[in-house]
């Protein structure tokens, strides 16, 4: 009965030529892990998408249509492919966005291409994703290379002066977990640091290791001025705890990608973390002049979810979605080739968005104006300190030298 009513109502609407007013929602499929060990971050990214969709809908939607986010859960590459098939086939999504894990993004974006849909990346880091040159794939957020570059910039401009050393006198130990994530960042760091004349030692470990004392002893023997680590959360915590036990005191510590959440604060305590540098996605506490609207984003997040953001990735996902919606508007369509063309033509300076990002895609469709910031643990809080203009009001770098 109800079905018949709906059908007749739709027919009546058609007859009256009222289709634009009843235009279908513009559905965007969000591929992320929503169960299992990575669900915390999968959910967090999607909160960013939902806030961006709400903001767009409040001002009339996109192409005259309401934007709706449909979740597709993927904890493995195979599930990523299945989720794309389901979202396109059953839910009729017109674009796909994601993804907390590089391997899932890799498989899901190929599946999206087979279904002639755009795959808009807002989190996965590996530079290889854009290097594939897939015609439906673009990344609006930083790549692993950007994290490596920012960490080297911080080494040369923050750490070296603070320790009173010239780059050629600086010794840096690069410690990384040995999957593609840590290895790709470490390789780029090594290359860039050596180009700058810095003395470099490199150590790797499995993030599943039961013991990392050997990694600490190797690093300790190198007597580095800076201990530069790219790890996952569990091994980062074990490394720091073992360093404390072994009385390993490098001149300074910088962590890339992780080490900036309550998970590390709980494991180490704020006293030990004091002064440690973090290369991280821009957080909502950055200055309004660097990331205009960051404060508004934070307020909107708090209002909708009744808490502070769990991780800074949410604001990156929010901005990534905004850029996608702008490209769709300019393209006047969700056809992937038209959206990609519109995105490629975008030219917005740094400091346009809440995260401080601008937009300028390179020939592989990597946004070259999406940069991480360097933050620092200060009294149990993570504060952006570099670039200086990103620092919030009254925030300054504190002594980074290990005591």
């Amino acid at each position: 009965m109800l079905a018949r009513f709906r059908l007749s109502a739709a027919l009546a609407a058609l007859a009256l030529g009222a289709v634009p007013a009843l235009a279908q929602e513009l559905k965007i499929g969000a591929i992320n892990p929503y169960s299992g060990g990575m669900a915390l971050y999968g959910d967090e990214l999607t909160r960013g998408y939902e806030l961006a969709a709400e903001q767009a809908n409040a001002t009339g939607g996109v192409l005259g249509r309401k934007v709706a986010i449909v979740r597709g859960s993927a904890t493995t590459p195979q599930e990523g492919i299945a989720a794309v098939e389901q979202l396109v086939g059953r839910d009729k999504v017109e674009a796909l966005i994601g993804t907390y894990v590089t391997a899932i993004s890799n498989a899901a974006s190929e599946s999206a291409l087979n279904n002639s849909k755009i795959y808009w990346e807002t989190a996965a880091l590996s530079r290889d994703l854009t290097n594939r040159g897939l015609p439906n794939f673009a990344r609006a957020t930083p790549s692993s290379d950007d994290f490596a570059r920012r960490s080297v910039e911080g080494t040369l401009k923050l750490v070296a002066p603070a320790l009173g050393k010239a780059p050629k006198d600086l010794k840096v130990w690069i410690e990384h977990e040995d999957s593609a994530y840590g290895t790709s960042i470490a390789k780029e760091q090594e290359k860039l640091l050596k180009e700058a004349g810095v003395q470099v030692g490199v150590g790797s470990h499995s993030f599943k290791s039961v013991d990392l004392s050997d990694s600490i002893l190797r690093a300790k023997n190198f007597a580095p001025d800076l201990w530069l680590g790219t790890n996952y959360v569990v091994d980062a915590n074990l490394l720091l705890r073992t360093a404390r036990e072994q009385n390993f005191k490098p001149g300074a510590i910088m962590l890339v990608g992780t080490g900036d959440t309550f998970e590390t604060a709980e494991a180490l305590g704020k006293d030990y973390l004091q002064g440690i540098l973090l290369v991280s996605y821009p957080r909502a506490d950055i200055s309004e002049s660097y990331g205009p609207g960051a404060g508004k984003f934070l307020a909107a997040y708090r209002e909708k979810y009744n808490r502070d953001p769990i991780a800074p990735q949410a604001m990156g996902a929010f901005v990534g979605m905004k850029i996608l919606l702008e490209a769709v508007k300019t393209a006047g369509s969700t056809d992937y080739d038209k959206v990609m063309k519109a995105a490629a033509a975008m030219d917005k300076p740094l400091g346009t968005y809440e995260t401080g990002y601008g937009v300028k895609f390179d020939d592989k469709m990597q946004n070259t104006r999406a940069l991480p910031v360097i933050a620092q643990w200060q009294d149990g809080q993570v504060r952006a300190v570099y670039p200086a203009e990103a620092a919030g009001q009254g925030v300054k770098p504190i002594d980074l030298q290990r005591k």
Partner: protein
Amino acid sequence: MGDDPAVTDLINIVAVGILLGGIYALVSVGLNLIFGVIRVVNFAQGEFVMLGMYGAYGAYAFLRIDPYLALLIVLPALFLLGAAVQRLIITPLQNEPSMQIFATFGLLLLLENVVLALTRGTAYSVPSQLAQVSVSIGSAQVGLVRVIALLAASAVAVALGLFLKYAMLGKAIRAVAQDRRAALLMGVNVDRVNLVTFGIGAALAGLAGCLLSPIYTLSPQIGTTFILPAFAVVILGGLGSVTGAYVGGFIVGMTEALAGYYLDPALKHAVLFAVFIIVLVVRPSGLFGQVGAEEVGLREQS
């Protein structure tokens, strides 16, 4: 000579190996009881350790008590869980040893995924004041919590050895391990012995979990990272031998530490399992196991 950096390195790495051995011995002692004595290949043993760790975290989060005090809650809880697993899963499959293995593997996945669902992958840590204390022993610097784990492993090994040798229940456990039917004929309550043994084995895993919780950041997968080396420890040391599990722990710990430092951290497990295979080929019953002990599990047991 003490100033020679190579010697200092060696002393440090030996200290690391001994402490890691203590951790492995602690994790393996319960497995040795269940696998080595009552012959159940319990893949879920690592998950019992994991539950012990989360128990310590829960005790901290809800009751604000130290992980060492949490033992008072976690040990009885794990004993009961172990006894329940034995009664509800292991006993019905008594005549199907290979199905028992699959069942414990299923239990591993069940426990891991339940904890995953409850925590949604958040990595928790148990803050303990002791975790920040580090002591110097000669030129080696070691964490106090690791020393405590080593001492606990030693105490448990001694206590368990004495228990199995002299206590009536210990003798009964050994009797059941050697010949189930003969033990039954001698009036041993075999069902009760199995129940209690599994319970003690699980409680020992809970002990390991609590004592190791100040060292590690908790993840639902942490149990599986322990289980493979723990099986290596039990088999290397000799099935059913408490001394074997204790010494095996140190062999595994020392091998990992030396290989990790002097060769390559990525080769740690490759070297360990190469040593494992060599020992098995040369001495199939393990270093301290009775010759032929490895075959007991294959004997008709019903």
